[in-house]
């Protein structure tokens, strides 16, 4: 598998050097693995910090900026960050009125954030945490580590970020963040697995007409294997999985997300079918994102994330945002 890298070991550091060169409005520490706003923390504003394994670009570093995150810390490829990063990032985000940790629900992320939160608390920083767990491919039961955090992370970071920018206190920012997560569900489908730089081979093998349903964003195999079919049917499979878990109606914020190796033209084709099927359900696409937002290295495929909007959430979604990957109103 050919990749545009210098070495498997330096992938994250090299990519952060590039992010730094491309975005003067970010402060990037490639070695320490911290990305924060160049302007530093905003005094009196609740700080937002997120992080996790790399390989999901633009998540999270691409969402650092006005109206969204204050800081992000990327871990190794697919490996959740380490506590020290979170502590440093939290300091870089701390405007004096508390910091919200946005944590995707994976054992590794949860444990490391937990250890980090303790250390932050010891330093006297007020910490709240929101666990993002929107992936309906995983049953939410004591027999699993719980649903995974995937696409909804973008919604949580955008909307909670807007609340924080608007001056809401920590408790309220955390409440909004949890509400967004509670109203969001995702489902992903892979046409081809991704290849990690270190292993150099696909994390799983799919036949010429096989696809993986309910795939994770770390190259984890999904819920089941199935036969390839056309975009309309695949859109239906994904949307129905979401709808089964959380009936869709009214105004919906929809993201059709590319997993890294999927061209935009195909994502638009999927989105067309999603939008049509939604309106067939009496729901409507009130807001949408189509593109690569939560990727899995070079995986081919897509995920669909739906969030049931309220007027407040829609207003916060529309609020100005200025980050490398999301930008409007400013």
């Amino acid at each position, binding site marked *: 598998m050919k990749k545009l890298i210098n070495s498997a070991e330096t992938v994250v550091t090299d990519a952060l050097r590039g992010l730094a060169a491309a975005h003067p409005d970010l402060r990037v520490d490639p070695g320490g693995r911290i990305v924060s706003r160049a302007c530093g923390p905003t005094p009196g504003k609740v700080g937002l910090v997120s992080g996790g*394994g790399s390989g999901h670009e633009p998540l999270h570093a691409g969402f650092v900026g006005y109206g969204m995150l204050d800081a992000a810390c990327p*871990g*190794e*490829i*697919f*490996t*959740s*960050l*380490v*506590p*020290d990063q979170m502590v440093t990032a939290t300091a870089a985000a701390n405007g004096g009125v508390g910091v919200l940790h946005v944590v995707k629900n*994976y*054992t*590794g992320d949860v*444990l*490391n954030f*937990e*250890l980090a939160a303790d250390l932050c608390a010891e330093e006297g920083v007020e910490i709240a945490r929101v666990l993002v767990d929107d992936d309906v*491919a*995983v*049953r939410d039961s*004591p*027999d*699993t*580590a719980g649903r*995974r955090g995937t696409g909804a992370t973008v919604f949580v970071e955008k909307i909670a970020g807007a609340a924080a920018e608007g001056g809401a206190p920590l408790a309220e920012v955390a409440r909004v963040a949890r509400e967004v997560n509670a109203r969001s569900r995702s489902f992903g489908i892979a046409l081809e697995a991704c290849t*990690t730089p*270190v*292993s150099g081979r696909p*994390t*799983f093998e799919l036949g010429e007409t096989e696809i993986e349903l309910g795939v*994770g964003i*770390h*190259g*984890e*195999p999904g*819920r*089941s294997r199935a036969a390839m079919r056309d975009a309309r049917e695949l859109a239906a499979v994904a949307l129905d999985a979401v709808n089964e878990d959380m009936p869709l109606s009214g105004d919906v914020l929809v993201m059709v997300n590319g997993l890294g190796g999927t061209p935009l033209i195909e994502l638009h084709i999927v989105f067309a079918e999603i939008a049509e099927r939604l309106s067939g359900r009496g729901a409507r696409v009130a807001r949408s994102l189509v593109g690569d937002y939560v990727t899995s290295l070079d995986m081919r495929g897509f995920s669909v994330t739906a969030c049931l909007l309220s007027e407040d959430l829609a207003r916060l979604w529309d609020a100005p945002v200025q980050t490398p990957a999301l930008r409007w109103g400013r």
Partner: protein
Amino acid sequence: MDTALLTRWITGIAETVRANRERLTELDAAIGDADHGVNLDRGFGAAVQALAEEPPVSPGALLRLVGGTLIRRVGGASGPLYGTAFREAGRHLGSLGDSPEVSPAELARALRAGLDGVTRLGSAAEGDKTMVDALAPAVRALESATASPAAARAVAEEREAFEAAASAALAGAEATIPMVARKGRASYLGPRSAGHEDPGAASCALVFAALLSAVNDPGQG
């Protein structure tokens, strides 16, 4: 058992993890995200370096340094968990005054404390298809084999104790193959997780195999 022996142990873990890096990553690819071998390689490599930079004065301090290093360097699920195991073991020895020599029985109790830390943090029980399925039986074997006060003295029996721990860990790891995972990334697969050995359990078996070699190997001084 002194810091020299424990240093040989950690160095041995680093070597066997490096040697088994691909295998561990393969196992993780099947039911996880294909990084376990890389994670531990990074972690124990850093631990060996840390030990070289500031050689600890007691087994307790050594285990705490190793634990802290793993927590700071590994990430993922295994970092905090393995890190906690070593750190809690070290803290237990610390609570006993950090003597420069510990008996196998004392080490057994320390590892028990480490196991407790792992289950407290990860809340995994035996049978959940995790490192606990190798760690718990290994600790039990070491405890019972070092239970009798006499045992602690006879070198032959000492070896047997660590042989028992190593084979218990190995058996425990192999026993994870038919299990359906209830914790960690593998649990996402539900029934599909059966038929694969748990990478963390496999690495845990390596940890106790390395302990046995460290005990057997007289060391270079």
